[in-house]
């Protein structure tokens, strides 16, 4: 029994997620790479982005994967730092997932840039301290280095040991810094009222915590085959009480923030602001996100009888993961819908629908994120007794 618990707690090779993830990720990668093959031959002309819609689905994907990566890392590191019972066994898995998501996000960004290889040296060597993108890159790098170091450390020592405390602190600061600067990339754009605002990093933080908690809950349930008996006792407590309760509170905050943004947006007559929210209100996507992806999970998690049910937790988490992606899409695209000085060339809002290749790019990068996670799980797992 103890060997079984140890195996499950480390995300061992017998769990449902381990069995399915690797082949699913490989299949997704193959389909995605085949679907976006044109991009490697004819270039970015297969994307529906350009001078009018600068940042399309590839940027949405990278921003979302980065948000989820930072969110998972923040949730896991806070849990480990404050020695919350039950986080020890799942800490390594969470960090492995954060690594996979960051690699997927960076790949999406890499594929979107006009000169990705040039970016590797031009950004660090030109010291453009005034650019939010520079700082986001700085913090993202600062995030990945301690993340890998921590994963290596966890091979030889248990989570939550005092020796790893300094690294935990650096990791948490880097994750918060990367998340905050990502918020500033948009929040500093005074010419785009839909994005502008000093509180945007906090909005991003709320979203990252929601999706981070949702992924931790989802993954832990799947890694234990939706069976609480396979979990070590502290993890069972964590999944049965602490995590869903915290998710419920954070989700409530995120929903309130979303309502606040929408109400302000609809009320404000500021040009370039209200019109985007009106457009959003008229889209099915927003209602799917809000009612199906945020309110429904909130109700499910608010009912004490359902909150602790692994199947309900998985369903609620999946809905939240999808809703946050839709939210990122609406946010990124919404900020660019208002044409800036185009006159009759663009009489209304800019029209944008992602191309098939863009969707394939998303599939590819998400698959890579899962593949890296699946492989890293094997690499960083300590040999079992």
């Amino acid at each position, binding site marked *: 029994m103890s060997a079984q618990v140890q195996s499950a707690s480390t995300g061992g090779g017998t769990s449902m997620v381990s069995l399915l993830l690797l082949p699913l990720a490989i299949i997704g990668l193959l389909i995605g790479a085949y679907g976006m093959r044109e991009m490697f031959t004819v*270039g*970015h*002309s297969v*994307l*529906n*982005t*350009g*001078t*009018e819609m*600068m*940042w399309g689905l590839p940027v949405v994907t990278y921003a979302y994967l980065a948000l989820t990566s930072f969110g998972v890392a923040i949730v896991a590191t806070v849990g480990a730092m404050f020695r919350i019972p039950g986080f020890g066994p799942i800490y390594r898995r969470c960090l492995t997932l954060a690594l996979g998501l960051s690699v997927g996000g960076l790949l999406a960004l890499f594929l979107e*840039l*006009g*000169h*990705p290889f*040039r*970016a590797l040296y*031009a*950004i660090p060597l*030109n*010291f*453009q301290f*005034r*650019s*939010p*993108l*520079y700082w986001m*890159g700085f913090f993202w790098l600062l995030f990945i280095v301690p993340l890998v170091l921590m994963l290596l450390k966890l091979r030889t020592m248990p989570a939550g040991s005092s020796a790893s405390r300094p690294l935990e602190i650096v990791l948490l600061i880097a994750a918060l810094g990367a998340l905050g600067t990502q918020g500033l*990339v948009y929040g*500093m*754009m*005074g*010419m*785009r009222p839909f994005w502008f605002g000093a509180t945007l990093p906090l909005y991003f933080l709320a979203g990252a915590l929601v999706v981070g908690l949702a992924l931790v809950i989802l993954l832990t349930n799947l890694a234990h085959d939706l069976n609480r008996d396979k979990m070590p006792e502290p993890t069972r407590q964590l999944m049965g009480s602490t995590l869903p309760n915290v998710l419920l509170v954070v989700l409530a905050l995120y929903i309130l923030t979303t309502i606040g943004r929408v109400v302000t947006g609809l009320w404000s007559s500021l*040009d*370039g602001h*209200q*019109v*985007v929210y009106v457009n959003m209100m008229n889209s099915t996507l927003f209602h799917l996100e809000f009612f199906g992806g945020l309110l429904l999970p909130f109700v499910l998690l608010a009912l004490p009888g359902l909150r602790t049910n692994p199947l309900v937790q998985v369903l609620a988490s999946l809905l939240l993961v999808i809703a946050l992606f839709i939210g990122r899409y609406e946010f990124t695209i919404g*900020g*660019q*819908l*208002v*044409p*800036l*000085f*185009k*006159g*009759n*060339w*663009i*009489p*209304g*809002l800019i029209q944008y629908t992602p191309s098939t290749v863009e969707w394939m790019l998303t599939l590819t990068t998400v698959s890579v994120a899962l593949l890296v996670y699946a492989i890293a799980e094997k690499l960083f797992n300590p040999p079992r007794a």
Partner: protein
Amino acid sequence: MAKWGMVIDLEKCTGCQACTTACAMENNTLPGEAWQDVLYYHEGQYPNTSIKWLPRPCMHCEDPSCMHVCPTEATYKTEDGVVLIDWNKCIGCKYCMIACPYGVRFFTDEKPLLEPDLKAMFPGENGQQWSPPYQNPESDWRHGVGIQPKGVVSKCTFCYHKISKAPEGVADLDEDDPETKEYTPACVRTCAPKARYFGDLDNPNSKVNQLIADKRGVRLLDHTGNKPQVYYLTGEGGSVPAFGSDPSQDQG
């Protein structure tokens, strides 16, 4: 050192788009990649409507947001006040396009803005985005001059390949002055109603400064703090358009 700026007299501008054409010829831009555009819009409700237009080059701002957001310092400001892109440094992240309040930056790697697709008709050679049969021999990628390479952002340079060779200390670059004609930006030189003026904003004796002072020159979206170096003369009671995003405002 001069601080180059432009004045556009909207009372004189006829909206003929000769400036747009001259710019496209001078800089070999693609269709739709209008570094110097003339924007048409209408005001009022039927039947009381009127068509208006606004010539719009890059504003070469004093404090350009596009420059500040560029993560590689590819967008920079020269000592003579011109905002340029170093195509050898640009990574094509398009953040500058997001940050420019005037929508004057272009990324031509993606779908053609207008048909036919000249990139397909004249495929790029030697790293160029496209290689038309007739090209301006001036090419300087460090200053964003010439046909842009793939994967970078492009924009108006105030014809930097011309103005940077102007005689030191000259107050204005005027097409009517034989001494400065060759250094005058293409859009200014070609403007038939002479609605455009180009000169040194730091020189109190320049024509551009006199016009700004005498005719109360205004700048677009001054509230953004970018402080454009392109001024508009709107005439008595005139104004530059706000270009609202709401179609019901009938502006565009």
